[in-house]
């Protein structure tokens, strides 16, 4: 089908953001990333343009052959900056890769639950994403896909060090297991810093997904393993899950506590958030993330009636690149804020 340039990127939400999964009031999604390299090729950081193209094509040939996964190739040289940034906002492309062009591709399936980057820091960065708390499922899927590729591609592997990667921080399993978390309770109770301090001891990383400060905007965080070597994939996932279990129960407990102790204040915050989103004439990007987060919390408390999917749709579709792509071209930040406010006013009119 001939698509015009505006519709090359699917602006719909991936099924992993749309659907509710296990514990999805706290765990938004689960993600498994595997890093793999071809044994006889230079790593992307040391490959010349021609070599990059060859590697990209070799990978394309194998990936596109697996018809059942329905992967579609997007050559980064053929996407414009807005399209690439839109994929970053959809969490399907790394920021690093969005700055690149020739000899690199990203492969997506229709549900947007698989994202495979070629010639990122490693030849292959494969991501498998599931809604809610589903690290095991995502790992099973990733591993069997990896097995399929293994039959066709000669992966760089060493008996002692495992899968060889460009950076020693990914060595061994090449596995980065992560969960996206919504922790408004712990944020409102001021407990995030304490949590941050204790997580490092478990070989895990915890960081905010939006914003630049140490207190993440919208209380959306990512928890992932730091160590990739010396433990099996299952062990890495298990230890992540056990810390996750703690965070989850703390978050749930805290949500109940703050509502019991600070009911008027918490309700006021949530309804003010709704008021601003429904009526603001101009909305900054991070401000809207912060406010949507409160609506999500309000929804979990049952005091705001709105579908979860709608909130995530608003969250993603009002990110800067999405807004501009929907608008059909680049917009200065002030105009984006007007556009963003307009979308919220329209979409939340009935709430």
């Amino acid at each position, binding site marked *: 089908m001939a698509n015009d340039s505006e519709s090359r990127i699917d602006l719909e939400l991936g099924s992993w953001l749309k659907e509710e999964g296990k514990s999805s009031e706290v765990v938004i999604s689960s993600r498994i990333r595997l890093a793999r390299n071809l044994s006889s090729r230079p790593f992307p950081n*040391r490959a010349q343009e021609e070599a990059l193209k060859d590697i990209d094509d070799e990978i394309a040939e194998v990936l596109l052959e697996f018809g059942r996964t329905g992967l579609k190739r997007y050559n980064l040289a053929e996407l414009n900056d807005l399209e690439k940034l839109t994929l970053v906002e959809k969490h399907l492309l790394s920021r690093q890769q969005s700055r690149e062009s020739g000899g690199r591709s990203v492969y997506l399936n229709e549900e947007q639950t698989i994202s495979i980057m070629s010639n990122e820091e490693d030849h292959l960065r494969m991501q498998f994403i599931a809604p809610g708390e589903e690290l095991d499922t995502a790992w099973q899927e990733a591993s069997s896909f990896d097995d399929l590729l293994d039959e066709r591609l000669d992966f760089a592997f060493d008996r002692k060090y*495992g899968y060889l990667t460009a950076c020693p921080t990914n060595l061994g399993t090449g596995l980065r297991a992560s969960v996206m978390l919504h922790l408004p309770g712990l944020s409102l109770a001021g407990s995030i810093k304490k949590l941050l301090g204790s997580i490092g001891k478990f070989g895990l990383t915890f960081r905010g997904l939006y914003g630049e400060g140490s207190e993440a905007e919208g209380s959306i965080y990512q928890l992932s393993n730091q160590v990739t070597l010396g433990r099996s994939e299952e062990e890495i996932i298990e230890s992540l899950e056990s810390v996750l279990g703690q965070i989850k129960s703390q978050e749930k407990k805290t949500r109940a506590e703050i509502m019991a102790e600070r009911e008027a204040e918490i309700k006021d915050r949530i309804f003010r958030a709704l008021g601003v989103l429904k009526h603001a004439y101009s909305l900054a990007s991070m401000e809207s993330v912060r406010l949507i987060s409160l609506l999500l919390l309000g929804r979990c408390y049952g005091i705001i009636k709105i579908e979860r999917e709608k909130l995530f749709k608003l969250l993603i579709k009002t990110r800067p690149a999405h807004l501009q792509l929907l608008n059909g071209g680049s917009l200065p930040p002030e105009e984006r804020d007007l556009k963003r406010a307009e979308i919220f006013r329209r979409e939340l009119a009935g709430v």
Partner: protein
Amino acid sequence: MICDHCGEKEAHVHMTRISGGEKQELHLCQKCAEKSDQLGISSDVFSFPKMLSGILSKSQSGSKQMAKSEQLSCANCGLSYQEFTERGLFGCSQCYDSFADNLDYIVQKVQGSKAHSGKVPRDKFPDHQLTLKIKELREELEQMVREEKYERAAELRDEIKEIEERLADSDGE
């Protein structure tokens, strides 16, 4: 407070990163903060190469081997050891052989471990799955003996023996 990155403007963004029990602070001006990765508490100052250089410079003092290694480069891709420590990235899979002398030290520092114990490509090491299976069965066997469930233990012993024979056969081929 002045920005840690450009050293010129007033720092407005303050970040704290706690990793492995160590706390690091970073103070940036608005502009440098925006330039650093938007996705949270990462920035150049905490980038892996910088930290790796830190690890290596600590180890280098007084080490003859490290001094020697500075002259090394990878025969396959030409990356020098010096470049590796500056960028924190290997140039090809052969680099792991070329810089083998220093690797255990680096890997131990970065990963807290020296050897892989996870998945193995099936076609390259067909025996690996069986070896893992034996390990698993042995653990169960010990458990059963401890619990004095000797009937199950005997079954497990036979199963282990059978797999070991299969492994021995495939070695002979």
